[in-house]
């Protein structure tokens, strides 16, 4: 043990008997269990932890906490670790960041010499023109980027998320926060107490005997209250609408970090106070630190922060720091009391503090300068609740206004000052009120905690750093003001002050105060910048966490996989695109018989006496006279007349229908029907039940489909007269009862769509293949189906139509019945029918060169290089042995026989002829009616 480690302190968090060995910058060091990386290194005589962002100045300890701007390090593969907060663990490999080529020597120190180039706005002015050099500038600027390194091969850890619910969440577990949590729990509500540090207690932890005694009592009380869930090393990083809180939990055994999404009825913000650095020349030298830092190092980590100290104090904390330094055996050479008008001018030294110059002109040799010149209330969470902090001249800090939103409370130092008893009393009163509010009560307002007077101290007569992370000085802010950036928000963006890793917690007030000085205004007039989430940095891992994305599979999925299916991800569904040769699969359907798994087709069970009214409303065609056992094709439009889904609906029984939708439209159509039933026609008696995956749906298509099915179907006469095209039957298939058979044909062949109870889907599928071997039955995938339907000229909604395609322009004019009573889209379709067609029309196109298949979305160009349409679908037709297309063309190009010019993606142009009908194969439909 070297002499920098003090004898045991009453409040220390160290386990003296448990040394921890680790490496720093390649060398081995030993600390103690309970040490942070910073305290362990300080105890070993290390004082420089990083090089600054712009000027590469050596930086040491400033706050000795999470916020410490100079103490960001790399631990193994993990960059940007806050060494003032992270506890030592055995064997960790800690390295400095942003130090090329080494921590001790850094050529960029030369930047200081050229400092005038790097003043505020340097980047904006220097790297703007010419634009062609931006890539080069990017390369240069990348050298300046601070931050650690991640390795692509680094093992990514596990992150976690969970939801939590508490009536009261208390953010901050200092004395007031603990008192609030206790009072709320004793009022009978569930409480979550969240503390950023590793232990409860706030400033009591580095206090004297009295504070430690009271802390022990408070901790025991919290432990004894089962209604309080305590989270340490955790931080409320964001407050969103209705007290939706993001809480980051660190230091867990199984995961790197966990993001808790907590819903609180009331939020108590007890974030305490953050000590504010003082601006003077040399204020970033290693050896210059805040009073709270010195007190934490001495009392929590038993580290002597220096040997010869000057203390600049304007408050009790500074006085207590001076006392702690004396108690730690530090030579306290001068206490400069700002309350008596004393002050310091500058600190000097090369690479570390050597001397301090005082207002009286004297120069004091010292290796430690402790400042205690004021406080900042970290009001972030209150800001996020819509509360703007107000400048208080008396206490020289921004404070939250007394009037807070109903569900948000504040207590402790963030609100005001007081003795420990006063803080505890305020916390208790606020906790009680928060619990009452959480239970819907209207508690009386809690008497405010007043703030004590404090001298307004921001800057000495010299210029120093305002933002240590971003290397922004008070001189930069004066320069910015001179250039006209005269508001807090503008100066922030121009100088980047407050935009570094500590996000303004140390810097904001000094930035505003220096700007006020530079522009001759008051701090209160300027106001603070707005604090937004996150309050503390969150790793991307915690945000991403475990990501959930539901997938959907049919009952036949495992079979598809086992038979070489190429997977097609269609929304949430995973479908077989093909089993290797889509063209052969399509040919087999035309010659023999194929089966395709069409389970994702939306299926809605419609029941009730008013189903025909619903169908008449949502489809453009007529449904009143659909007989039991029949099915009909229908198209749905939105209120603007644009096609949004199509499908067939069959009448199974008197009051029972089955509607099918497109696979991608299944959810939307269901909500659409519910919308009309619930909001416009609640009097209609209809029940809509989605049964999409209650059935496994298989299309059996091809000239031999009837023969194949006849070997499996029981109880249904499949003969053409008994079961004609566009009809539906119920029967038994391969021993499975309650199967539905529709005689419809997307492929253009004789085909049956069978819907079997999903648990038997695989059984029926395998039975079809088994009994149809001699018929040449084979599975086909989505791609083969696309080829077949294109040959038949069947459109796909959303591919051959778009967000502007009204039903009439999609070749569906024959379907629309404008003589119906109201139906969705009728008004627009009626007006459209009264005017000459202006919208593009869907037509079939035959490319002149049979061997060129124009890519889908190829433009159709017309005279004067105007666009006259586009190809919506294209394939090589196995049946015709040539290219075929569907496309949307201007109405004047839609006449049969018109030759249009298609521009291919590579710029070549080919010709195509507009056909009379959409179908290329079997236009009269003899095959599917066979």
């Amino acid at each position, binding site marked *: 043990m070297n002499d920098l480690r003090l004898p045991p302190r009453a409040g220390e968090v160290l386990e003296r008997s448990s040394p921890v060995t680790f490496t720093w910058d390649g060398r081995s060091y030993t600390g103690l269990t309970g040490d942070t990386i910073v305290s362990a290194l300080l105890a070993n005589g290390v004082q420089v932890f990083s090089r600054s962002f712009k000027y590469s100045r050596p930086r040491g300890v400033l706050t000795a906490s999470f916020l410490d701007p100079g103490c960001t390090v790399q631990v193994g593969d993990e960059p940007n670790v806050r060494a003032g907060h992270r506890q030592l663990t055995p064997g960790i490999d800690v390295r400095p960041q942003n130090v090329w080529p080494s921590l001790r020597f850094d050529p960029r120190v030369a930047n200081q010499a050229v400092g005038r180039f790097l003043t505020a706005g340097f980047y904006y002015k220097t790297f703007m023109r010419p634009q062609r050099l931006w890539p080069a500038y990017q390369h240069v600027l990348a050298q300046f980027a601070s931050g650690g390194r991640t390795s692509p091969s680094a093992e990514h850890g596990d992150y976690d998320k969970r939801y939590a619910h508490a009536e009261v969440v208390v953010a901050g577990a200092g004395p007031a926060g603990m008192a609030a949590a206790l009072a709320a729990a004793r009022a009978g509500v569930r409480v979550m107490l969240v503390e950023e540090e590793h232990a409860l207690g706030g400033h009591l932890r580095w206090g004297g005997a009295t504070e430690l005694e009271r802390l022990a009592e408070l901790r025991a009380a919290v432990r004894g209250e089962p209604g309080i869930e305590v989270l340490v090393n955790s931080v409320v990083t964001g407050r969103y609408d209705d007290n939706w809180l993001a809480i980051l939990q660190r230091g867990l055994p199984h995961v790197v970090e966990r993001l808790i*999404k907590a819903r609180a009825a009331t939020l108590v913000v007890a974030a305490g106070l953050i000590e504010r650095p003082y601006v003077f020349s040399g204020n970033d030298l290693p050896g210059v630190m805040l009073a709270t830092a010195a007190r934490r190092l001495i009392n929590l980590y038993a580290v002597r922060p220096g040997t010869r100290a000057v203390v600049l104090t304007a408050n009790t904390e500074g006085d207590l720091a001076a006392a702690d330094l004396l108690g730690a055996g530090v030579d306290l050479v001068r206490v400069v009391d700002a309350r008596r008008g004393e002050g310091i001018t500058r600190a000097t030294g090369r690479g570390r503090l050597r001397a301090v110059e005082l207002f009286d002109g004297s120069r004091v040799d010292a290796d430690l300068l402790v400042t205690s010149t004021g406080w900042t209330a970290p009001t972030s969470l209150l800001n996020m609740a819509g509360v703007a902090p107000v400048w208080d001249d008396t206490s020289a800090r921004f404070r939250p206004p007394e009037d807070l939103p109903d569900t948000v409370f504040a207590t402790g130092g963030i609100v005001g000052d007081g003795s420990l008893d006063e803080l505890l009393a305020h916390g208790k009163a606020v906790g009680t009120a928060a619990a009452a509010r959480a239970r819907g009560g209207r508690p009386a307002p809690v008497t405010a905690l007043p703030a004590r007077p404090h001298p307004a101290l921001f800057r000495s007569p010299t210029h120093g750093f305002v933002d240590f992370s971003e290397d922004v000085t008070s001189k930069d802010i004066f320069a910015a003001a001179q250039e006209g950036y005269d508001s807090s928000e503008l100066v922030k963006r121009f100088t980047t002050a407050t935009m570094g890793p500590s996000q303004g917690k140390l810097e904001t007030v000094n930035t505003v105060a220096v700007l006020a000085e530079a522009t001759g205004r008051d701090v209160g007039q300027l106001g603070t910048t707005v604090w937004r989430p996150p309050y503390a940095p969150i790793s991307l891992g915690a945000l991403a966490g475990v990501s959930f994305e539901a997938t959907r599979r049919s009952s036949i999925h495992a079979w598809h996989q086992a038979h070489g299916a190429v997977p097609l991800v269609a929304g949430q569904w995973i479908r077989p695109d093909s089993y290797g040769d889509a063209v052969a699969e399509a040919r087999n359907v035309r010659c023999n018989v194929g089966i395709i798994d069409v389970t994702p087709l939306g299926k809605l069970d419609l029941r*009730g006496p008013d189903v025909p009214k619903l169908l008449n409303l949502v489809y453009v065609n007529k449904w009143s006279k659909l007989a039991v056992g029949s099915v009909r094709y229908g198209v749905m439009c939105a209120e603007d007349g644009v096609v949004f889904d199509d499908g067939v609906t069959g009448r199974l029984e008197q009051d029972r229908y089955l509607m099918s939708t497109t696979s991608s439209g299944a959810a939307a159509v269901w909500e659409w029907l519910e919308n009309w039933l619930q909001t416009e026609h609640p009097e209609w008696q209809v*029940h809509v039940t989605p049964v999409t995956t209650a059935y496994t749906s298989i299309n059996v298509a091809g000239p031999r489909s009837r023969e194949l099915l006849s070997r499996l179907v029981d109880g249904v006469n499949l003969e053409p007269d008994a079961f004609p095209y566009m009809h539906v039957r119920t029967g038994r298939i391969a021993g499975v009862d309650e199967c539905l058979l529709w005689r419809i044909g997307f492929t253009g062949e004789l085909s049956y769509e069978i819907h079997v109870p999903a*648990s038997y889907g695989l059984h029926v599928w395998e039975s079809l293949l088994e009994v149809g071997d001699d018929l040449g039955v084979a599975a086909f995938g989505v791609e083969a189906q696309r080829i077949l339907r294109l040959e038949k000229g069947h459109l796909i909604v959303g591919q051959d139509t778009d967000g502007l395609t009204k039903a009439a322009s999609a070749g569906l004019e024959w379907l629309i019945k404008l003589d119906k009573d109201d139906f969705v889209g009728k008004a627009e379709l009626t007006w459209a029918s009264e005017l000459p067609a202006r919208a593009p029309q869907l037509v079939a196109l035959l490319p002149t060169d049979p061997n060129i298949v124009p890519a889908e979305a190829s433009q159709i160009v017309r005279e004067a290089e105007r666009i006259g349409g586009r190809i919506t679908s294209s394939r090589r037709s196995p049946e015709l042995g040539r290219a075929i297309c569907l496309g949307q063309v201007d109405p004047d190009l839609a006449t049969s026989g018109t030759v249009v010019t298609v521009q291919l993606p590579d710029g070549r142009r080919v010709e195509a002829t507009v056909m009379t009908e959409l179908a290329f194969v079997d236009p009269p439909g003899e095959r599917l009616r066979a």
Partner: protein
Amino acid sequence: MPDMTFAPVARSPIQPQDQLEVVGGWEVSRRRSSAPLLLQDLTPLAKVLVRARPDGQLAAALKVPSGRAERDVNGTLVVGSGPGEWTMLAATGKAHDVIGRVHAIADDALVSAIDITHGRALLRLTGADAPHLLSKLCPIDLDDTVTPDRAAFRSSVAKLTTDVVRDDRATSRSYLLHCERSSGLYLYQTLLEAGKEFGVEPDAFLDFDE
């Protein structure tokens, strides 16, 4: 007429791994586990979706409001799964019985009872850590004061719309979860993955009356 005899076997979307047995026409696993947290695939149970007016005679006869679940005299678990909507869970193969009983209750308005056995996957999660596992996936407050035994709700579980029924066993917390069949495997695998830290294991299928 087909000249072959078929012996159809019903299968859950969650393929059982070992100790396979056919129970009530369904292929299930009978492998028991003694882990502290158990996940069972109960998909073979009969499931019937009933719709009627929330203020009609059927609702009055069922006496189960939305958000609650109760067992009726036949042992059917009647879940009030929405306004005017009930999900009934019964032993394997009993869907038609349940539908028959529903239609036997007179109501002057439209009543529909649909067998959704094949349209849903049904899981049971049992063990003291069940609420802790669910709180990783589901935003609903599972505290006793909010979601006591026999509470029912539909919400998001791992971003999947899922019906959850708290149906405690004699000695431990237990939740029934059912979702749309095609996502059953997703839900099952997600629960197993998220439950690793609690030692979750698959457990054998048990019919309602077993």
